[in-house]
């Protein structure tokens, strides 16, 4: 490796640290972590060197690591610009800090190794993510973070955690899938995912979609940026996708520092990274602004009523993330980076110091609030105080801006930030007025505030100009974020109103509130609204509940199956489909193939094979059935008429829906897996029905799907051998009692929910990115099935691995041969899909020739 490639070591070192942590030199001893920690330090030092280098250069650099023949990702490269190197320093610095903190904090904990490994993995993924030079690689690490985070946010032996960490996962995963839709669209429109080329091509592209054939027009770039923004919303906890963040507070305390200082900033970073793309769509930017603004105000208000420290900090973080998004929405992408770093440091410090609260309360106990509030008598001094605290900050702000030579009124963004700074300073003034007796210290404080304000403006300004070398670029972004004048006026009015409301409330704190008009009513209803977190949790709970009830009803009533069956037939009837010209032999072979490669409504055979047979036949048939079905299908696919293909589409869509509902209501673990598999096989059917032939991608998908289903059937079979037939949730807590099994099972689940670096993910990507699929309704269907497969596979993992281990069961971990088999399965799945694909297409072709002769 030449010296120029050293930046790749920055994310690789933590990865290596993660890999060596599970192999302790001495159990439960610091020496295990010292070397890993040194690697983290190394990563930090390397990123410092990189930053120093980047400062001297004035152009954006890409470091090409290797190139290959894959059209989606022709070369794997690292982007070394100012933005990424600053982020690298920030994240690796936090890595060093949190790793050191956790080594002591979790000392002697039974899950210490696992925890440190996941921590290092998350940091490594974060580093990879910020260093990527294309959207595809970025997405790979983006979704890995989703998974690591939801593993980390478990408190492994605590009931409610399982539910909340599921919510974390599913919210983030939903965001991921929106993100990947955006990527697929971008690839379809621009033919590349590499940032620089993407930005150039996007600015030249004028594609416009009309939604569902209606008159509503939406430009390509707006749709893409909007979809990607939903991904950013879920990671950065924007309302209404914010609920996972308070839920994730079940995790060990240092995780919050990582989360609130690192992971959650990913959304802001993503937008900053894609700034040139976002600046092409003012519409998206306005949406970003709106969501950010709502999140900022609402979450910070919810913070006010929390009575425990972690939730207080959680909501405060959500609010700050909202502000970060607002900044992005106004086009100040790099100010957002400045904000997320400042906030990260601030929040991490408070979180790590969380235990201090009781000590502080002991040393300085608070006294219950006395309800003898004074009446307002001294109106003149009150008014002068308010006037002063209102006007003086404005003067300071203007002066400091003049001093720094920033043009204030040139763009909307600056004015709005000015308003926020004004709110802050005037709040400080108000406090000064109320508290301070000595004039000297008051003046001193005023000077200090002006000084800090000026420093802050100076720092923020120079930071922005440091990140983007070209000042015109910054101006361009701000212009793109500019609001229509009416909207701008509205926003300013709202902010000013809010600031006034803030004063009104500060006034309440010191004077008798009940005397004010509507005081009690306002106070009670707003308080309740905030205490119940805007009832959002309640609403989502209700939705989940009704979904569950529907699912339950589906499962119990067999007549619904008939309804499911009737819909496609009716459809056919109305389409007046005829199947003349199809030989009976073809139809029979097709039906046989649909029996083996389960297709609704004749998936029952496959289900029975997996659930009812004994162990050995089950294992053999689980791999033989899909293979045989594929072989049969291959021989007849070219002869199937177009109506037939449409029939397949309808049946597989209905089948997917049916299987998903069935899966979610199963109790026996094997039928759970078999229905889950049926839903996933429907994707294959959808794709071939759309294409009319079997594409390489779909073969890749099919292969990896079959292998992973086999692996799960095998793994569960081994559990059944040990503990008898069991229902979901019957044998929990394997994380502690069967570590080898758990590790391998987690890998299988990673495959099943379509996570890289496993081949099912590449199968999905191959399918989604192919031209025939990307703009069709099948695309939505596949994304939905993918989403629900994540849903139930993650639930299955939780039900087996987490929770409290039962005391009446003697647990026994996997033996050597079982481990070996599962390792082989996982290895098969990790081989990049193109290799499998090339190999397969070769064998399949020769097989086809052979079978063609035999038929």
């Amino acid at each position, binding site marked *: 490796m030449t010296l120029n490639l050293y930046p790749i070591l920055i994310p690789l070192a933590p990865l290596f640290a993660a890999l060596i942590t599970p192999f302790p030199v001495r159990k439960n001893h610091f020496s295990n972590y010292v070397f890993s920690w040194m690697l983290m330090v190394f990563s930090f030092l390397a990123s410092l060197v990189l930053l120093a280098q980047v400062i001297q250069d004035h152009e954006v650099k890409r470091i090409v690591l290797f190139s290959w023949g894959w059209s989606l990702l022709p070369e794997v490269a690292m982007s070394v610009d100012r933005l990424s190197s600053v982020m690298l320093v920030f994240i690796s610095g936090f890595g060093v800090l949190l790793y050191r*903190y956790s080594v*002591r*904090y979790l000392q002697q904990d039974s899950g210490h190794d696992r925890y440190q490994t996941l921590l290092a993995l998350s940091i490594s993924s974060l580093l990879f993510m910020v260093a990527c030079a294309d959207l595809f690689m970025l997405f790979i690490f983006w979704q890995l973070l989703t998974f690591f985070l939801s593993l980390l946010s478990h*408190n492994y032996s605590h009931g409610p955690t399982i539910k909340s960490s599921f919510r974390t996962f599913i919210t983030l995963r939903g965001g991921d899938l929106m993100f990947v839709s955006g990527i697929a669209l971008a690839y379809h429109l621009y033919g590349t995912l590499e940032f620089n080329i993407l930005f150039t091509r996007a600015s030249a592209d004028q594609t416009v979609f009309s939604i569902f054939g209606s008159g509503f027009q939406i430009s390509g770039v707006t749709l893409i940026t909007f979809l990607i923004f939903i991904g950013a919303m879920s990671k950065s906890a924007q309302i209404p996708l914010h609920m996972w963040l308070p839920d994730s507070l*079940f995790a060990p305390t240092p995780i919050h520092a990582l989360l609130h200082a690192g992971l959650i900033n990913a959304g802001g970073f993503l937008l900053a990274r894609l700034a040139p793309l976002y600046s092409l769509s003012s519409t998206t930017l306005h949406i970003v602004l709106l969501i950010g603004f709502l999140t900022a105000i609402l979450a910070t208000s919810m913070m006010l009523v929390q*009575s425990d420290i972690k939730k207080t900090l959680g909501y405060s973080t959500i609010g700050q993330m909202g502000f970060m998004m607002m900044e992005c929405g106004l086009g100040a992408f790099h100010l957002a980076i400045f904000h997320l770093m400042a906030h990260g440091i*601030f929040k991490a410090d408070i979180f790590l110091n969380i235990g201090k609260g*009781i000590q502080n309360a002991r040393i300085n106990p608070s006294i219950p609030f006395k309800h003898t509030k004074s009446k307002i008598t001294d109106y003149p001094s009150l008014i002068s105080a308010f006037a002063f605290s209102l006007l003086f900050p404005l003067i300071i702000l203007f002066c400091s801006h003049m001093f720094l030579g920033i043009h204030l009124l040139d763009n909307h963004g600056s004015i709005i930030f000015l308003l926020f700074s004004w709110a802050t300073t005037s709040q400080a003034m108000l406090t000064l007025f109320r508290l301070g007796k000595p004039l000297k210290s008051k003046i001193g404080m005023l000077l200090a505030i002006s000084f800090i304000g000026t420093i802050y403006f100076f720092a923020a300004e120079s930071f922005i100009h440091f990140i983007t070398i070209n000042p015109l670029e910054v101006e361009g972004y701000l212009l793109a974020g500019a609001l229509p004048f009416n909207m701008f006026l509205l926003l300013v009015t709202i902010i000013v109103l809010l600031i006034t409301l803030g004063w009104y409330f500060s006034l309440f704190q010191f004077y008798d509130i009940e005397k004010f008009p509507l005081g009690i009513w306002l106070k009670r209803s707003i308080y309740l609204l905030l205490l119940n977190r805007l009832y959002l949790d309640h609403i989502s709970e209700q939705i989940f509940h009704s979904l569950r009830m529907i699912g339950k009803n589906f499962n119990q009533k067999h007549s619904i199956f008939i309804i499911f069956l009737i819909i496609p037939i009716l459809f056919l009837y109305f389409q007046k489909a005829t199947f003349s010209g199809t030989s009976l032999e073809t139809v029979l072979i097709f039906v046989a193939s649909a029996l083996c490669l389960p297709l609704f409504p004749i998936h029952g055979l496959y289900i029975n094979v997996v659930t009812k047979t004994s162990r050995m036949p089950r294992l053999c048939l689980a791999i033989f059935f899909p293979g045989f079905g594929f072989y049969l299908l291959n021989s007849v696919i070219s002869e199937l008429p177009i109506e037939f293909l449409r029939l397949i589409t309808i049946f597989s869509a209905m089948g997917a829906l049916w299987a998903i509902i069935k899966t979610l209501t199963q109790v026996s673990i094997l039928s759970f897996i078999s229905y889950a598999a049926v839903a996933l096989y429907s994707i294959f059917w959808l794709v071939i029905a759309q294409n009319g032939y079997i594409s390489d991608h779909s073969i890749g998908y099919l292969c990896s799907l079959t292998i992973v289903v086999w692996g799960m059937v095998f793994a569960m079979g081994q559990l059944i051998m040990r503990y008898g037939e069991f229902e979901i949730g019957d044998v929990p807590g394997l994380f502690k009692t069967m570590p080898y099994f758990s590790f391998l099972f987690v890998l299988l689940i990673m495959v099943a929910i379509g996570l890289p670096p496993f081949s099912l993910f590449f199968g999905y990507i191959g399918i989604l990115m192919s031209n025939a699929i990307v703009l069709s309704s099948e695309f939505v269907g596949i994304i939905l099935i993918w989403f629900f497969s994540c849903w139930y596979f993650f639930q299955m993992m939780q039900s087996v691995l987490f929770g409290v281990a039962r005391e009446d069961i003697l647990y026994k971990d996997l033996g050597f041969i079982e481990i070996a088999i599962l390792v082989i399965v996982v290895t098969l799945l990790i081989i990049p899909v193109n290799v499998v694909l090339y190999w397969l297409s070769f064998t399949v072709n020769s097989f086809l020739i052979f079978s063609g002769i035999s038929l």
Partner: protein
Amino acid sequence: MNSTQEEEFLELINIVDKASHVIGYNWPMTYFVHHNPISRLETIPFHKAIDLANHFLKSRGYLSNEMYRKQVNTGRIKIEHLNAAIQSYISKTGVDNSVELNGKEIKRSQVIRAHLLNGITAPTCKQINEIIETHQDEKLIRFISKKIQKKYVERANSKLVYQKMTAAEWCDSTFGTNLVFRVNNELIKWCGSFLDEGHAIWPLPGRQKGFYEAWRSLAMNEWSTCGIKNSKKKINELSNNPFSIVVEKLNTLGVPKEYWQDYISLHLASLHGWASFINWRSKNSEYEWQKAYPIDLIQYLGIRLFYECELVEQTCRHEINKEGNFKTILSFESSKLKEILSIESKKLEDSWKILRLLEFLGVDKNIILEATPIKMEDLLIWVNELEEKEHGPIWLDAFERGYIDDLIFKVNTNVNYIAEKTSQNQRPSAQMIFCIDVRSEPFRRNLESIGNYETYGFAGFFGIPISFCSYDKHHFTAQCPAIIHPKHVVREVIRDGQDKKTNKNENVEKVLELINNTFKSMKNHFVAPFAAVEAFGWFFGWHLIERTFFPGVYRKLSKPLKNILVSPLNTEIMINQDNANLDLSEEKQITYIEDALRTIGLTENFARLILVVGHASLSDNNPYEAALNCGACGGNSGEPNSRLFTKIANNQKIRQKLKTNGINIPDNTRFVSALHNTTTDEIQIYDIEDIPEAYLKELNALKLDLERAAVINNVERCKKLPGTNKNYTPKQAKKEVIRRSGDWSETRPEWGLSGNASFIIGRRDLTLNVNLNGRTFLNSYDYTKDPEGAFLQGIMMGPLIVGQWINAEHYFSTTDPEIFGSGNKIYHNIVGNVGVMSGPQSDLRVGLPLQTTTIGEINFHEPLRLCVFVEAPRKIIQDIINRQASLKSLCQNEWIHLFSIEYSINTEIFRYTAVNGWAKIQ
């Protein structure tokens, strides 16, 4: 309220009070009080109390059997002790008969031992058929199962549904709903907001009207309450008297009155942390927050029962279309088909057990082929009558025997050794009075080994219950054990001649406060914090780095740096206040000093320097910091008490009076106050200004010795702490303990009181030179100077009770870290400045965290009941026990083990039991 209502009201109060016995009290964590979580069950025998608590709280009162077996493997529980414990169990439950199998005699005790050591349980019935199919001994098992002729009778469950589960729990288990979870979450929400002591920026409105009213006035405006339909209307219609709600809802649910107590206990146990905190608040009406915002269990129960009742009704209507009350439940239960496991699999289970038993006894399995069914059943009865969950008491007995034997051996050999020594009445270089705390023991031992020092142990508040206000604070702290109330008010004042510094400090503090408040007001707002964080966030970077990477430096430099800003002032303790009631009059001062000195037996042979050493702990970012401080000073530092004691004892007037009372303190004796830092073992000396120059040389020499002792103790301490090298040099050890005291990521700054197991009341000679491993409370007492036993009674009713509380807190936190303890520290979340929850939403955690009691999977603290050794004649002890009912109940119900050490010709040790009285130990 008319008279019948009033009567009902009083009756309900009585019922709720009785029902609350299982949850006890929970103090706010700001002054962590070590206490027995089930202290109100101390009136019944120990094992029974544990059973009772287990029933309601679903807790565990002993270590798991697996843990005890581990102790056997490590050699901590010796087989001889196990045998003795088994014998004692057998003698209580029958005789040690035996069964003869093919010429081989198998005794009952053997069977029990095999059962204890291996745990003879069969796989659950669901699994057993499948497992046996592949088992090597399949034939044998089937053979035995055919032979068993035993009749299987369903063990009638005497408990009714009301005693077993609440209506909501029944719904959950029958219909798979999550009512309990929902009700709990709702109550956590309201309790958290109501009980908040200054955390929330916007507190719950209307709290001054009390919990129930505050809830009612808000909840009736709630859009949706806990999924109850029409909740607004229903809550609006509720009576404004919580008492009538409780009665009404219990009647609606159809709970018969005689079971109200059990039913309420079940409800309180559901969130026992919050409930026990409310219980504590309601019993402390003087507590400021309680005065301002009253709350009690009846208000809590009113809300809880309202939720339950409505939800149960709703669920029952929905699921089976019947009324939601116990009538429905009982009829549903009786109509439900009882799931009787097949006799066949029961028999299989039993034959499995027999086979396992024979294996563990080391007997050839095949001899069972010739056994008669009756013999087999005998074996079975012995195994089955002692289910795995009933092993605890025997294990505990064996566990305790090991410790007691060891301790008695140590004391015995030492006493013999001391007896050989002729007592030399040489004046010691210095005398020191330490707290009885178990952490004083190693330090005292190490100090005594260095020079001619005499040490004493006395409760760390030095007998003077005071309320103390430090010069820079405005609030008072109660400097005495939680079992008594402070009787006097004492302030710290600034010594004269420091006006300039004082003025400067005041200004600096004002500015600091201003900065703090300004920053807070920017943070706690809904528009202001954004720009503030952006501007100020960066400044936290330094803090973050310093605290993580340089904790030792932080600990060393934080004080000097602070001193530059706020100059340290010389202060002294001011005794006399204006308030005559709380005044510490001269007579009282004399009594306190005299009692103290007489109690510990320091009435003659005074040294020139007498150090009065309080103690405090130093740790960072630790919510349990108060638990590490001096328990005798109410979770505070012992410094004020020590300084007060010294001030009084150095007063010439007092000394004159003492002389007339028979305690002649020489004029050249000087009391000096000091503070022992239990994390780093540093000893800081206070009020040096008052010490005449003549003593300074000696004091310096003493300081050097104290430092030497500290270093020895550091090394000893590091050997026990996890994550340290066992072979530290003194220098490394010192560095390590300083790091621990300042490291914000350290969850075990020190072990604290973990390991405590015994309480020795007696002269130091008894344990001089004996290594007690920091597990013993040492209270000095000389019975020769207390013929009446008056001081002994003081000790036994004061420090001993506190010791038992500490011991019980550790005991139960170890046996059940989730129910009685507060679980893992890494998840803790401080709520309302009063306690911790695990994660964002949970019960208020009680007790000690896992980190205090365990290392990894193994418990560090050995859960043993307190062994009390009193060096005094049996008669005197017996008299005290007879006089003091609470003490009597502790001893007779086996919450503590009581021993007496007597001297006749040899040392003799007697053990007190309720059954046998005083029995001599061989």
